[in-house]
């Protein structure tokens, strides 16, 4: 997993509810520990990363969470304003444009514009020479990206707009951005999956679509929330026999819980095998955490695990 940290940009995507944010944060912690100045960029406007570290708000601001670890929550409206300011250079003119109602309608009605400016901001964060005045450079930008379908649309937006525009600033920048995200030495796309039918199917579809639509290879699959195999098949039979022979309600409930766990762990193994077979690679695994709520120490434990993954 450590070779992943040599990139400048990591997109973390996957089906909704698989733990993209969790993995993005754990990767961020791991990178920061190794001395890389790292920023985890969110696009869902939920400030989740900031909240884990006890910060209320990272709304289009680069907030330092821990030594070497930063976060920002990117929203399209601010990204457009910033882009205009950089592009137009004359501030009153940029402000005029941003505050113009016609422009706002135009921005809201233009399909793909939100995706384009969002990824544009991500690209800006990853520049060695930042365009944002006074901003320091990052060694690594980790994007807690949108879920699969919308995630691909975001990655594709620069190329689409560059193709349509052909010449002019958007065409030029679209090509820069596209070149960076399709350069495997600079950028990596990581999929987060659960060891369940749907997320595995969607991960495989993601890999196919990335290849077909962007010529990109899915760099890594991380299977999140994997149960330990606590009971061997032979032990499970012992548990079943014990359950059949009666007992107090409490002991029976404990046995049932153990057998449920066993069934689920086994079903997960089958899905991981399916993933392995289809991708030809052993996916990385993160354990299911029996925590009521994931706090900073939980992410540290996940970062430890990622560190150990070859």
């Amino acid at each position, binding site marked *: 997993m450590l070779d992943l940290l040599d990139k400048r940009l990591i997109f973390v995507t996957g089906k909704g509810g698989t733990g993209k944010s969790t993995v993005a944060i754990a990767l961020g912690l791991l990178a920061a520990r190794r001395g890389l100045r790292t920023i985890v960029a969110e696009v869902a406007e939920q400030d989740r990363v900031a909240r884990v570290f006890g910060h209320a708000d990272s709304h289009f601001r680069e907030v330092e969470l821990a030594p070497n670890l930063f976060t920002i929550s990117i929203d399209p409206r601010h990204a457009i304003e910033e882009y205009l300011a950089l592009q137009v250079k004359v501030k009153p003119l940029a402000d005029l444009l941003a505050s113009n109602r016609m422009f706002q309608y135009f921005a809201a009605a233009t399909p793909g514009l939100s995706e384009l400016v969002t990824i544009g901001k991500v690209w800006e964060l990853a520049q060695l020479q930042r365009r944002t005045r006074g901003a320091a450079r990052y060694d690594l930008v980790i994007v807690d990206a949108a879920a699969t379908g*919308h995630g691909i649309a975001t990655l594709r937006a620069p190329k689409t707009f560059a193709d349509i525009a052909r010449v002019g600033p958007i065409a030029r920048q679209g090509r820069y951005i596209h070149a960076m995200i399709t350069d495997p030495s600079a950028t990596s796309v990581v999929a987060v999956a659960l060891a369940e039918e749907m997320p595995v199917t969607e991960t495989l579809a993601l890999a196919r679509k990335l290849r077909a639509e962007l010529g990109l290879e899915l760099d890594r699959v991380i299977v999140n929330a994997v149960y330990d195999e606590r009971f061997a098949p032979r032990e499970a039979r012992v548990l079943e026999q014990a359950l059949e022979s009666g007992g107090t309600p409490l002991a029976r409930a404990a046995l049932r819980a153990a057998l449920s766990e066993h069934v689920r762990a086994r079903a997960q193994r089958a899905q991981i095998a399916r993933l392995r077979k289809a991708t030809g690679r052993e996916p990385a695994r993160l354990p299911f955490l029996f925590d009521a709520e994931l706090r900073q120490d939980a992410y540290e434990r996940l970062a430890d695990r990622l560190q150990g993954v070859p």
Partner: protein
Amino acid sequence: MNVADVLADKRVCICGGSGGVGKTTVAAAIAMGEAAAGRKVAVVTIDPARRLANSLGLVDLGNEPQLIDPKLFAATDVDMGGELWAMMLDPKRTFDEVIDRLAPDARTRDDVLGNRIYQQLSTAVAGSQEYTAMAKLYELDQGGDFDLLVLDTPPSRNALDFLDAPDRLTHFFEGRALQVFLRPTGFAGRIVGRGTGMVFSVLKRVTGVDLLEDLSVFFRSISSLLEGFKERANAVGKLLADPETVFLLVTSPEREPVDEAIFFWRKLKAARMPFGGVIVNRVHHDLLGGLEVEDATSELTAELGEKLATRVAENFRDYHVLAWRDRVNIERLTTKLEQPRVLTIPHLDEDVHDLEGLARMRRFLFATEAERRALLDEVVA
């Protein structure tokens, strides 16, 4: 809360909630239950699990509902009194169909369908799946072939966009400023006033001329569909607020999905959309009933030996960390919602991916409170 009561006088049921909470299976189980009770029901899903689709005999074709073979229910406890229909939504195709229907002539239709900006819009832009889901729902409702339509909305926060989308589009198309895009270099650009003219010339510098032209063509060709879009947006808005429509929220008992459900509920309330209740899926129920894990240790040790008993106890303790978490989150949910209409489904052993699994889920959804308690005892004790 009981799904049959909530849906008794409804003809549209929209299931909302964040991704990964089992919304598709809940929607399918609801449709199955209502169909079993004698109604003709269609469930519209976005992207069901392959095995689930296979088990229903669904193939990825048609973009129209298909009747689920009644013989398939023989293997379950479902006594199919009505008809269950299901379809998988193809967003791109649905979008194209809307354009086809609204375009005044073949040329305009081809202009729109061939425009690259439109192609971007119709495939994967945030909100496009939601839009097409609503479009399909509206069409099926207009068709009047079904007693009940169950819609499994696309996941994520974007799912809320469809509540605002018609308004946003209408605003844009109604604005006089749109004229600038329709004829950017012509007369209209000059007459809309200096302010806008200046905005436009800045915009041209930022985007480049070609892009602006493509946009202009896109807006021009789609503007002839404007009346149709507006009418449709209004009609969909009416359908969503109709007393015979109801929203059911689906969530898991984890923190973030519960936050999303609360967020969604607020949004529904603000938009005056009819709210039916929340279904909390995959709940770890408390199995201790006031006792401690340790109270079972000696019995388990006698039966299993110390080593295995220790692991069983450990597993039981871990399970109750989740049970405790679920209770806290469900309490938060019931406190935030002013009407505490919450129904829970236990965390079943396996993913629901076949008719038998749907039938099992249906039992929880359609049971009375007393029946549900009995079912739960069956599952856990």
